[in-house]
């Protein structure tokens, strides 16, 4: 059996990266001769969520409940996963390669004294069990052997598209109340503040992101870019150098150590496209690079490009949008 940790959004749905991980698990299960896929989540799922998971081919939904699960603790979540895993005898334990997914599975791997592979993009063979994962911010792939059972790994965001199964699963709900030791509750979240509006949440969900790099020139060089953001009802995303120089706040950073975005259109302006940045924007469906250097990595990897200084191109684009809107 394959066990997948599913993260539930505040609105009560299975987050996209978790649905991707379940889809990945299903593909793996098919290669393994049709072994069942079960999921573990925290809290009681409503009917809609249970229905969605069933449509993804899930056999059982193990819901971790009890006071230990009132607020997040990586160790407590792992304790629940391990307990379900031991009873059901799963050979693979998976999660999405999100902060939570990587954290909880690292706890699972440490408790079971087995290796863990983070940010897997594909599996190679079953015997030996090999996976390929992203390292160096996605610039390099590592083939890794997971010889021990369970195989523990997380799935990189957007490695596979989330897709319901041809044949739905039973989606049977199993309420779990695992035994959680006091020691596993020492490091738990004691308070959560609502995110301020328009922080990185807006950036990761925006349909259009306008990017800005060193080419912006200074902290005062963002007026035209911000106007374009407003005209397109999008968000501003910046490269690491922009936040390092203090031109813009860190929550606007796109990249390996910032947000990972997947908008319909990304418009990187004056961004050369270092690996660190590419790691955060490579999932954009279209990329329009505006750059003075036609050989910049961002330009050669883009779908569309304009060669020129952003301080000339962007105001002209803004003017053209306003003109067409009358």
């Amino acid at each position, binding site marked *: 059996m394959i066990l997948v940790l599913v993260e539930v959004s505040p609105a009560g749905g299975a987050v996209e990266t978790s649905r991707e991980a379940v889809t990945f698990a299903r593909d793996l299960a098919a290669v393994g001769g049709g072994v069942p896929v079960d999921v573990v989540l925290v809290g009681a799922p409503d009917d809609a969520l249970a229905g969605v998971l069933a449509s993804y081919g899930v056999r059982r939904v193990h819901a971790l409940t009890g006071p230990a699960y009132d607020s997040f603790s990586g160790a407590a979540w792992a304790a629940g996963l391990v307990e379900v895993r031991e009873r059901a005898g799963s050979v693979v334990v998976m999660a999405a390669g999100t902060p939570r997914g990587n954290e909880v599975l690292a*706890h699972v791997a440490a408790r079971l004294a087995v290796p863990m592979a983070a940010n897997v993009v594909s599996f190679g063979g079953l015997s030996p069990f090999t996976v390929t994962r992203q390292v160096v911010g996605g610039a390099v*792939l*590592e083939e*890794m052997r997971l010889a021990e059972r369970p195989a523990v790994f997380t799935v990189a965001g957007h490695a596979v598209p989330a897709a319901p199964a041809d044949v739905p699963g039973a989606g049977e709900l199993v309420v779990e109340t695992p035994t959680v030791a006091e020691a596993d509750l*020492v490091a738990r979240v004691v308070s959560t503040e609502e*995110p301020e509006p328009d922080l990185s949440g807006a950036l990761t969900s925006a349909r259009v992101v306008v990017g800005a790099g060193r080419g912006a020139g200074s902290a005062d060089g963002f007026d035209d870019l911000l106007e374009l953001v407003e005209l397109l009802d999008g968000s501003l995303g910046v490269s690491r150098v922009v936040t390092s120089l203090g031109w813009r706040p860190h929550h606007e950073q796109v990249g390996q150590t910032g947000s990972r975005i997947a908008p319909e259109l990304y418009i990187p302006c004056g961004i050369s496209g270092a690996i660190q940045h590419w790691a955060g924007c490579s999932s954009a469906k279209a990329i329009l690079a505006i750059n003075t250097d036609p050989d910049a990595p961002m330009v050669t990897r883009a779908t*569309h490009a304009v060669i020129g200084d952003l301080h000339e191109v962007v105001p002209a684009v803004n003017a053209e949008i306003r003109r067409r809107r009358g």
Partner: protein
Amino acid sequence: MNPLVCVKRVVDSSSEVVLTDDGQGVDGRFAGFTTSAHEEGAVELAVRIAADGGGGATVLTLGDTDAVEQLRSALAVGCSAATHVLADPQAYGPADVAREIAAVVRDHAAAGTPHDLVLLGNDAADTGDFQVGIRLAYELGWPVVNGVSTVSVADGVVTASGAGPDGHETYRVPLPAVVTVLEGGVEPRYPTVPGRMKAKKVLIEEREPVTEPVGPSRVRLVLPPPSPSTVEVLGEGAAAAPAVVDLLERLGVLAR
């Protein structure tokens, strides 16, 4: 209060990556090296916590002789002691590294310098394993807070916070504890000239690994196939604006 902060010498991801012929690592001859970004934040936090608590921060790395550069960098921004586990980092998996860090923590405590707080980066910029800090916590039997950007210590309790999926999250954990840091919460300071001079004079503790490494389960590294450039150049300079707006209309991102 003498926090320990762990750093790693990694490939500078702004440079082109070339692999060694055996596919086991990045070819250092063609790479620039740096400290992982998250660890620069961890170093800054360790220095501030040590200063507030009237102690000193110790920086630790496991790496070959070149990794002394990363130790000196941390000393130059305020760490007061450094420990270097001399080993080939490519032969060490995350569990191996965690064991070596735990050994340093125990040995330093036995020698009279307990580190009640160990700070690490959330994940290394090269291997991206996301687990050394957590495995270290299990080695030591300590609690671990993962992926936070601000950390402070008062009255034997560490308060740490960072962005979570549902908002800004805060943890309060009694010492001793392990904390892994994400960049963005504090601005790493630049080394001053006196700081650099002082860093050169610090005697670095060099030590051998305590156990044979199990290894990283790596079969080999490969470069992803380069995707052929299919970029459509819409024009040059301001004259390209109409073509840009045509594209925006075609993609349906202009509609209001």
